[in-house]
């Protein structure tokens, strides 16, 4: 038997919100008998645009029924904007988790919600938004759908993709496509990830880097206006300087210090640098 949580079993045995909402504002139908699971989601909005009622009908296994039941409970009371942000992971989390091979049940829930919202907005009844280039012909899964589950769940293997949306679970002909999508998503994640933290420097290395930055980036600028600066001390991230020449009397020295000196040191040495002027 599957290792289902008590919550999955509860929602399977006592499904909430079974049926079809009358005069529904949004209807979403996904899956098919051939695929082994299918879900019809209907919802109605109240005067404030919140989901007042949501019901489901599901053909599928215990976790498909539980995921559908959980979905209706999650979205009740939400605005459509809030509902549009519900992910398959939210559905799985609501149930205390799903076995990895059953994650596609939570994805089916999210898909039905997406289709139902689109149906409300555009009147489309078909799975138009899920149309596109079908890469898994066995289960009719599009490139966009695979991209979506890979991105939302940070998937890294074809097997995981199969568990989440079935793609690749039939003849296996689309395996190269799925591998490509996983690789594209990985590159995308790398690009958007914050730059790795700067390597830790010794205080000597830091002082040297500060001096180099002053010489290369800051001093030539000040010298053009007949000014200069001197490095007095470095205390952790605190850098104490003293202005010389014209800068010492300049009434915009305060701006020079923040906009030029501190900005350059933050850029080239460390974002934590704070520059102070030694006026003694």
């Amino acid at each position, binding site marked *: 038997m599957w290792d289902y949580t008590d919550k999955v079993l509860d929602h399977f045995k006592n*499904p909430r919100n079974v049926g079809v909402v009358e005069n529904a504002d949004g209807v979403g139908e996904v899956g098919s*008998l051939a695929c*082994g*699971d299918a879900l019809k989601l209907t919802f109605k909005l109240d005067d404030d645009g919140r989901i007042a009622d949501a019901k489901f009908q599901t053909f599928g*296994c215990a976790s498909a029924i539980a995921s559908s039941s959980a979905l209706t409970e999650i979205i009740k009371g939400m605005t459509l904007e809030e509902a549009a942000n519900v992910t398959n992971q939210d559905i799985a989390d609501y149930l205390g988790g799903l076995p990895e091979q059953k994650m596609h049940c939570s994805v089916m829930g999210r898909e039905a919600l997406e289709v139902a919202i689109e149906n409300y907005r555009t009147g489309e009844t078909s799975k138009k938004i899920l149309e596109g280039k079908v890469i898994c012909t066995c*289960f009719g899964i599009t490139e966009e759908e695979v991209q979506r589950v890979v991105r939302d769940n940070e998937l890294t293997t074809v097997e995981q993709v*199969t568990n989440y949306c079935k793609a690749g*679970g039939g003849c296996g002909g689309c395996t190269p496509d799925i591998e490509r999508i996983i690789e594209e998503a990985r590159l995308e994640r790398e690009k958007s990830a914050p730059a790795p933290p700067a390597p830790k420097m010794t205080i000597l290395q830091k002082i040297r880097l500060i001096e180099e930055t002053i010489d290369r980036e800051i001093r030539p600028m000040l010298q053009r206006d007949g000014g200069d600066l001197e490095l007095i001390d470095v205390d952790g991230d605190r850098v104490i300087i003293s202005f010389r020449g014209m800068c010492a009397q300049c009434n915009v020295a305060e701006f020079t210090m923040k906009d030029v000196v501190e900005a350059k040191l933050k850029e080239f040495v460390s974002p934590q640098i704070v520059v102070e002027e030694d006026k003694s």
Partner: protein
Amino acid sequence: MKNVYFDNNATTCVAPEVVEAMLPFLTDYWGNPSSMHHFGGQVGRHVEEARAKVAALINADPSEIVFTSCGTESDNMALVGAAEAAGKGTRIVTTRVEHPAVLSPCRHLKELGYDIVELGVDASGQLDLSALRKAVAAGPCIVSIMWANNETGVIFPIEEIAQIVKGAGGVLHTDAVQAAGKLPIDVATTPIDMLSMSGHKLHAPKGVGILYVRKGTKLKTFMLGGHQESGRRAGTENVPYIVGLGKACELAASSIDEERTRVAALRDRLESGLLASCTDTIVNGAGAPRLPNTTNISFQFIEGEAILYHLSDAGVAASSGSACTSGSLEPSHVIRAMGVPFTSAHGSIRFSLSRYSTEEEVDYVIEHMPPIVAKLRELSPFA
């Protein structure tokens, strides 16, 4: 809560007589039959007695019985052993509805350079014997065709198949794991070369099986090591389990008539009861001769795993060909090979009875199934 076990094609309870027969070999008689002292000597005799009992069930000579660890090992030993003895490139003919214990080694052998032919079945699960005739006509080949199907219970005409294969000079192996103990088997009159059996499908424990190997069959040794089983299968004999299997075969031989009469009547009662109380049902393999204990029914528009969980809550154990029960995404390869539409394949439930099943249990299932089907159909967008 009632406890109804209708999943006997998956495994069976160990018969109390079998447990009793085995116990002394776990407590007092624990010697190694190969040893040259009385510890060993007193157990070796019991291994041979067990061999004779197994041989009697299928009317073989005891020297043709090789003890193994399970049905899967027996199938692997037969296929790989016969293939290696015949040499690369040899044709191996099998069917699409075999157990994975046959299909997987065949697909492995295909990678090694053997010519594998998988025969299809019709909608009722039966073989097209003319396709078999064609497949074996090309020259010496190895054929592996199951006696009875584990999922549907459909029985293949092994007599006729044996005549065709032997007539073409082929070697015939049959996986009789489900047939043994439920159908009369006589290798003296049916020219089968090899036959697999599994202990735990006929009320012996898991961990013991046999391969019948007709005298003169060319078979490369599969398990290498010591001289046990006349050099055909190395490894110290699993004495308690072998003794248990011997006892189980003795019991099976005496209850085969009961299987064909009382158990078959119970199965028929269950099948007709469920068909009468639940709408939109299909019996898979209905048009073919079937094992007396098995019925495979598709409940349309609902899914097998969901049915099994509700049945289990009611205390009933069965199994399903649904994709979800296996963790794979496609429904049973047997059901699909029969061309059963997807609308029915996902909701197929197998009930398999045994000689321990009762009429009361059958009626209990007939009573509890309709509300489960109704509940799931109420949830289904298709019903």
